[in-house]
């Protein structure tokens, strides 16, 4: 995305695609497949270790979720990658450029950071805010780029309003417009929906999805697990050190057995006979309390696609009235609690 043309799509899903010409050419980024590569990164503040021996990589165009409890080191990691603070040890490449004093300015030209707070000058208008940042980036054709960025987030009609007069959701949009100005290859979001109402949070999700469609690499730190599950290609769960990393589906598979939930109109007389010996079914248990009404069973299976039809046939053959058969899906929250719940002292 850091080439010489910038196409601002209607990120909010309403605006038409607009084209802006980014006349300024950056020196070409080194050809790398990974947008971010982190190796054994550690940051110690005084005697407190904020990030310990963290390694991961993020591919270009990927939406990468960075999850963890408060104080897990998420923001510190983002700040290191954004060259705001320096690591105590370890190394990192951002857009193929080593994080360090020599590459810091070049990295900053290729990234954008949206911190938790929109960080707008309240006494300046939206346009004045963007104008300032466009000048700091040394962008040519500033007015056109600002107009494009505002249109991309659906904020063109509020361009001359004071930033302080905007709602929190609109401020987030203005902050995103600011982040789009330099046509970043990598965008860091630090808790972008924190404190937003569901409608505003939904809008931010749409904006992030729009970035993904444009091929921007998105690094998203969040507490909202459903947000990460919905938006991210892969997630890392961290608590000072990295606990796990992978696609949400893979993490679920690694941590939990696959199971089928079966509901029938009345309890089976001989469930062992019905479920025993079926292909892919490894075990079963009654999921609800015994009674005269509908009965639930949870079946541990190795392959849902093979097990579900076999179970259905067996139930029909046994004369059971089947109300539902569905795969019991573990959420990312289950994964998170499995990994983090113990140390948080929370429920598992």
């Amino acid at each position, binding site marked *: 995305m850091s080439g010489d043309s910038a196409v601002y799509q209607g990120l909010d899903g309403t605006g038409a695609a607009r084209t802006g010409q980014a006349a300024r050419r950056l020196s070409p980024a080194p050809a790398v497949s990974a947008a971010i590569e982190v190796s054994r990164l550690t940051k110690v503040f005084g005697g407190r270790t904020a990030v310990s021996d963290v390694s991961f990589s993020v591919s270009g165009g990927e939406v990468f979720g960075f999850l963890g409890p408060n104080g897990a080191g998420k923001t510190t990691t983002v700040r290191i990658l954004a060259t*705001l603070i*320096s690591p105590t040890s370890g190394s990192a490449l951002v857009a193929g450029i080593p994080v360090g004093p020599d590459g810091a300015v070049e990295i900053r030209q290729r990234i954008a950071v949206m911190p938790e707070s*929109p960080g707008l000058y309240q006494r300046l208008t939206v346009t004045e805010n963007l104008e300032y940042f466009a000048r*700091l*980036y040394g962008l040519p054709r500033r007015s056109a780029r600002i107009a494009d960025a505002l249109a991309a987030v659906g904020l063109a009609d509020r361009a001359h309003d004071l930033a302080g007069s905007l709602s929190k959701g609109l401020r987030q949009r203005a*902050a995103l417009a600011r982040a789009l100005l330099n046509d970043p290859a990598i965008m860091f979001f630090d808790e972008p929906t924190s404190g937003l109402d569901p409608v505003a949070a939904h809008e931010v999700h749409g904006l992030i999805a729009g970035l993904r469609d444009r091929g921007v690499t998105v690094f998203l730190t969040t507490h909202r697990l459903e947000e990460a599950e919905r938006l991210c290609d892969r997630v890392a769960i961290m608590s000072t050190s990295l606990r796990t990393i992978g696609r949400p589906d893979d993490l679920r598979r690694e941590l939990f057995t696959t199971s089928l939930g079966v509901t029938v109109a009345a309890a089976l007389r001989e469930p062992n006979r019905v479920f025993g010996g079926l292909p892919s079914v490894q075990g079963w248990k009654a999921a609800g309390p015994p009674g005269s009404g509908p009965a639930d069973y949870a079946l541990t299976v190795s392959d849902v696609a093979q097990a579900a039809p076999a179970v259905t046939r067996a139930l029909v053959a046994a004369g059971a009235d089947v109300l539902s058969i569905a795969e019991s899906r573990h959420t990312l929250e289950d994964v998170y609690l499995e990994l983090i719940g113990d140390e948080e002292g929370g429920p598992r």
Partner: protein
Amino acid sequence: MSASIARVGAVIHKELAEFRRNRLIATTAAVLPVVFLIGPTASILDIKAGALSATLDTRVEYSLFLPLLVPVFVPSIMSAYSVVGEREQGTLEPVLTTPIRRAELLIGKAAAIFLPSAALGYVIFGVFVAITQLAASPPVAAAVRHAPQLPAALVFIPLLAAWAIWVGLAISARVSDTRVAQQLSILGSLPPVALAALMQFKVISPTFGLVAALAGGLLAVDCAACLAVARLFDRERLITGTRPGRLNEKETQGVGNAQGGA
């Protein structure tokens, strides 16, 4: 890599726009000069033509001292807001993730305060001298015109303003509350004012040599203060309040000559 004039200009432009719309700063910058102009002017114009020489001297000393506080107090208030105001609005982190160098941010912020403060100081003295020459009795007008404190004051205006700016920025970079920053900043800007007061009230006679020596000393102190503040303007320090680590060490070393490694 040298500082970008365009980025420094962007910072100056933004800072001035913010100052204009900040009620406290705009009021301070508007009211304080008027107060420090009306009092001394009225005091001078009130002197009768036949007043005793001692009375005349005392009034002139007083009248030429008070306006000197304008280029101290105004930049104190502005500079104290400069960083802590950004921190309160959450704007510091987005700014520091742009390619701006530390020296550019520092120079931009300092210049945006220095230019209006020094200009205000000179305008106050210009208006004061003009009024006294036009409206005061000839002996009083001559006393103002020939007062040795007048050229001394003109030399000290930018030096005092610079000191107030560095002190204000240093405090602003370290505290998290605007009011606390402004109070500490005004306190911190006072020591050189005491020196100027001694001279204005002729406790020490403002001879050319003394003025030059004190101005040179204050200039050296201003330069040292600039370097000290530059160290505080390290990204990591500004964001986390801790000392810079490995990444920013190069930047710390390079800022003395208006260059930043990152």
